[in-house]
């Protein structure tokens, strides 16, 4: 059975998969032509398929990172734990963070962005579809590359922040850090190319009538994030390059004996690292800003404020990086400046919380699972954001930093922020992507177990952190645990139990996916009575997204096509004037006659494949790197020289028979 349900057409017969015949030019450089089966995924350039692949891969690494977390919590459940040795523990927390930040959260946001940005803009694909595919495969190969380090001598063990000089060869002799650094350069390429792609798409390919201030908030947030990526990834690339040169070629960038300053790494890393955390959380703000209005049955409160605060966060986020370095000895002037700038950034973040709450205020709240996750996010993120404000007070932060209080903060904003939003997005958009709604009953269980588990795991960390339990330690001892109800021992145990409850909650989601795939009925086109353009398509959308590209007259265009205000004067009376099915039918009836779609291609995956080969070469055997470089160059030329299209990839909508009246509202007589 297909993973994606074939769309049930609203009115006309469903689209026929276009038949394609191979182009006959240049032999070897033919374009692939399949439209089904695994090859249609491997060589696809369709943003929707790429989005799904990003999502599935990200989910796999979420589970990997989750297992790493469960092992950590198992080790810390009791004093002087013996589940993991110190060495393995150090690798475990390094890889847990790396997996979660780079291999789960960023690609999951890319999944949502890739799938929905073109749809929300009224476009048919992104600006550079092959580069889009290349980005995905680079990410996947980079992610696998990093994880092979587990079996190739040991994973990286310097923490995801990888401070120098501890990241140097004398202090970490295995290949783990080398593979970590090279792998992150590879995944960085994916993010970088994706950023350029989505920015050009959002700026250049909006449908008619869609000014920037009519773009959905999700699209806006994704756009801001891409700008952050565009400028932050080069900085981490520089840092990683310096580290690789140090470890592989004997450079002394971080060798104190040669006169190096270890703080150079910290500055480079955090100039990337702070925008990175906004990269992680802004897409979530976007998703929530879509979900809350739909299930509150009223528009987002203060759209311009939400948009501008998102942009402000992106902008000010470049000026706060040294708040990760308050204890590093920067001197009081620098610390004061960054302390104040960190407080400044709390303001636009607070604006969002206010706007979301006021969106719900006065609404007609429907508590679907997606809405539960959305409300959960507002609550959890508020907690995390407020603890963040307490960190901005630099003298306090010197007591808080490197303790579990910080761990509590960022898990509340990342788990309570990014993760909950992804789940909200899943439940919200699943019917559009896969044609079926996830089970609401299982969904409620999923949600509550996750909320309880999450708060049980990370809530107590506020306490243990303030009680003096430092981070990144493979054991804690009874001697430093204190006594009484708030002792560290008790709360570590609670945290560990909570982690397993959280795991069960996530397991329920996976069960829900399988159950839905097997048993659930086909969903209607617009089950939630939504507001934005992606809902003006079939479920799942046809390969070319829209039969005819919509013209946009207002924010929440789709909603305005369905509802008309027939009230008099000050009175408002919204009346439904069209259903989603009718609107879709009209679109189909006016279908563009000739739709050219980008053809699949071999070269993105081949080019991407050369990257880990070069990576293995750098770390292990330089000859392999040369082989990889040759593949890279050949793949680039193959890409540039391949035929622009495979044959016959046009979609021709079938012509409705005269007189059946199927095609449009008010069809030809």
């Amino acid at each position, binding site marked *: 059975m297909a993973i994606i349900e074939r769309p049930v057409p609203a009115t006309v017969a469903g689209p026929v998969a276009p038949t394609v015949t191979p182009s006959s030019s240049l032999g070897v450089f033919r374009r692939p032509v399949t439209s089904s089966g695994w090859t249609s995924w491997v060589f696809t350039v369709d943003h929707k398929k790429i989005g799904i692949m990003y999502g599935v891969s990200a989910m796999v690494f979420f589970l990997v990172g989750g297992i790493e977390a469960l092992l950590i919590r198992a080790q810390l459940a009791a004093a002087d734990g013996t589940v993991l040795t110190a060495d393995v523990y150090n690798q475990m927390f390094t890889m847990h963070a790396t997996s979660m930040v780079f291999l789960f959260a960023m690609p999951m946001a890319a999944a949502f962005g890739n799938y929905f940005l073109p749809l929300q803009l009224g476009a048919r694909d992104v600006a550079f579809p092959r580069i889009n595919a290349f980005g995905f495969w680079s990410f996947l190969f980079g992610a696998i590359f990093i994880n092979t380090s587990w079996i190739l001598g040991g994973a990286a063990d310097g923490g995801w922040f990888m401070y120098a000089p*501890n990241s140097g060869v004398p202090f970490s002799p295995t290949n783990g850090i080398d593979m970590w650094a090279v792998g992150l350069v590879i995944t960085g390429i994916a993010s970088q190319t994706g950023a350029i792609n989505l920015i050009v798409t959002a700026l250049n390919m909006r449908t008619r009538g869609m000014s920037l201030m009519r773009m959905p908030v999700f699209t806006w947030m994704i756009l801001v994030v891409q700008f952050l990526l565009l400028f932050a990834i080069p900085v981490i690339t520089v840092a990683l390059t310096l580290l690789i040169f140090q470890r592989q070629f004997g450079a002394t960038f971080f060798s104190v004996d040669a006169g190096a*300053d270890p703080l150079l790494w910290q500055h480079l890393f955090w100039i990337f690292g702070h925008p990175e955390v906004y990269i992680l959380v802004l897409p979530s703000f976007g998703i929530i800003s879509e979900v809350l209005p739909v299930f509150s049955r009223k*528009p987002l409160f203060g759209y311009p404020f939400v948009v501008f605060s998102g942009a402000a966060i992106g902008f000010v986020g470049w000026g706060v990086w040294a708040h990760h370095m308050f204890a590093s000895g920067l001197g009081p002037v620098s610390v004061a400046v960054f302390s104040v700038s960190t407080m400044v950034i709390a303001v636009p973040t607070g604006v969002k919380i206010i706007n979301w709450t006021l969106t719900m205020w006065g*609404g*007609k*709240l429907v508590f679907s699972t997606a809405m539960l996750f959305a409300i959960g996010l507002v609550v959890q993120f508020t907690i995390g954001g407020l603890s963040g404000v*307490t960190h901005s007070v630099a003298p306090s932060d010197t007591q808080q930093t490197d303790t579990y209080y910080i761990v509590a903060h960022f898990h509340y904003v990342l788990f309570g922020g990014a993760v909950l939003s992804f789940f909200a997005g899943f439940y919200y958009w699943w019917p559009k992507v896969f044609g079926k709604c996830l089970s*609401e009953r299982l969904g409620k269980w999923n949600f509550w177990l996750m909320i309880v588990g999450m708060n049980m795991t990370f809530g107590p960390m506020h306490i243990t952190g303030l009680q003096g339990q430092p981070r990144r330690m493979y054991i804690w001892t009874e001697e430093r645990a204190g006594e009484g109800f708030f002792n560290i021992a008790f709360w570590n145990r609670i945290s560990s139990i909570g982690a397993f409850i959280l795991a069960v909650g996530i397991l329920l989601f996976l069960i829900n996916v399988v159950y839905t795939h097997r048993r659930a009925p086909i969903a209607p086109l617009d089950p939630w009575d939504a507001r934005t353009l992606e809902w003006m398509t079939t479920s799942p959308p046809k390969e070319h997204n829209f039969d005819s590209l919509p013209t946009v007259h207002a924010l929440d265009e789709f909603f305005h096509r369905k509802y008309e205000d027939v009230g008099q004067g000050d009175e408002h009376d*919204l009346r439904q004037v069209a259903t989603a099915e009718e609107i879709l039918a009209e679109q189909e009836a006016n279908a563009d006659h000739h739709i050219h779609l980008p053809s699949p291609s071999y070269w993105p995956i081949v080019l991407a494949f050369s990257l880990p080969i070069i990576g293995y070469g750098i770390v292990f055997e330089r000859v392999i790197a040369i082989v990889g470089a040759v593949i890279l160059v050949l793949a680039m030329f193959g890409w540039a020289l391949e035929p622009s299209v495979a044959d016959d990839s046009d979609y021709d909508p079938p012509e409705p028979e005269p007189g059946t009246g199927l095609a449009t509202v008010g069809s030809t007589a």
Partner: protein
Amino acid sequence: MTVAGTLAGVLPSGRRQPILRSSRPALALGGVILLVAGCAEDAPQDTWQPAGPNAQKIHNLQWPVFAIAGVVMLIVMAAIGWAIFKYRDRGQPLPKQTHGRPTLEIALTILPALILIGVAVPTVGTLFALAETDDTECYINVTGQQWWWEVDYPAQDGCGGIAEPIVSSGQMVIPIGTKVLVRGTSRDVIHSWWIPALNGKRDMVPGRLQTVRLEADEPGIYAGQCTEFCGLSHANMRMEVVALSPEDFATWKERQLAPYEAPAADTLAAEGEATFLGQCARCHQVNGILDADGVPFISQPELYVYSEAAPNLTHLMSRNTFAGASWDLLIPACRSEVWGAPPEEFGALYLQGITPECLNQVDLREWLRNAPAKKPMYADPTELAATDDKTRGMPYLALSEEQIDQVIAYLMERQ
């Protein structure tokens, strides 16, 4: 699942959806209570139990900010809780499609900004107060190394006058009521010096000299840990600050600078001295120890240890922790007596040092028997290529039980 059904707020099963107002705000409220009450008990590294003016300044800044944050959280939770209750779908028609209210939004933007300005001003003030170094009354140096702390007192007029440098490790002894300035660096990777009861943490960065103020109000022992990830045994790199009255501190100084007393001939300790010279002294300095030829023996840890130093054991038994302060030299009963002593009795108890009946034989013997097995370190000779065949930490010495007895007897005299 129908559109209409969803809109009417009815789940496919036909049940009305549950009202959520009770659980979430309550959970949050509970969180606040827990947070505020988290300071109540006596974890030795509790950050909300300041024992000196620097930590007190931080505390005075911190708890009001927490309180404000708590109040904000309650307000937000209440608003959300109320909205969930009042505006849930009860079958009413589509609500008014408000797009926003600029004046309200601007006001609610300005309000948090004002609160934060109110927080920023004392923050900057406290920051600069804590960075003050001109009023120092005593200088103490620390050097972090994988995975222990070296503490040394340069000769100075401060601290009541120190005639010659004192070198110790793991426990920093200070006089109460004295503005101590800790100056620190590292010999290898970045570590961090943190005694929560006395001040915030400061990273100890190789190649740089960083400072942090310390002052204790009352005699006692104040626990800390290295708080910058420094590798394998980051969890086993602890330290304490011991605050003594000025008289007790003078006594302590005197003992630290007392000349070396060799063990009496033909005692177990004398055999221990010989074993120590043979097995330990190449890394561990004991000031004044003479080798077989009567020449003062100078340790050379730089030949064996990658970070080029090992703890000075001249007065090991004047402290009560060892191996990077990871284990106690005192058995639990004696330990709780010393650590839990009220301030007026603490000095005398601490200055007793380690008596034979209080010695923690178990941990000390395990350590001497096989240090790398007890504390994760890099000491396997076959795996030291990356560090020029030098260890990071103490190696396995294959001491016999008899040798261990001798060494312990010898060390017991290092008071």
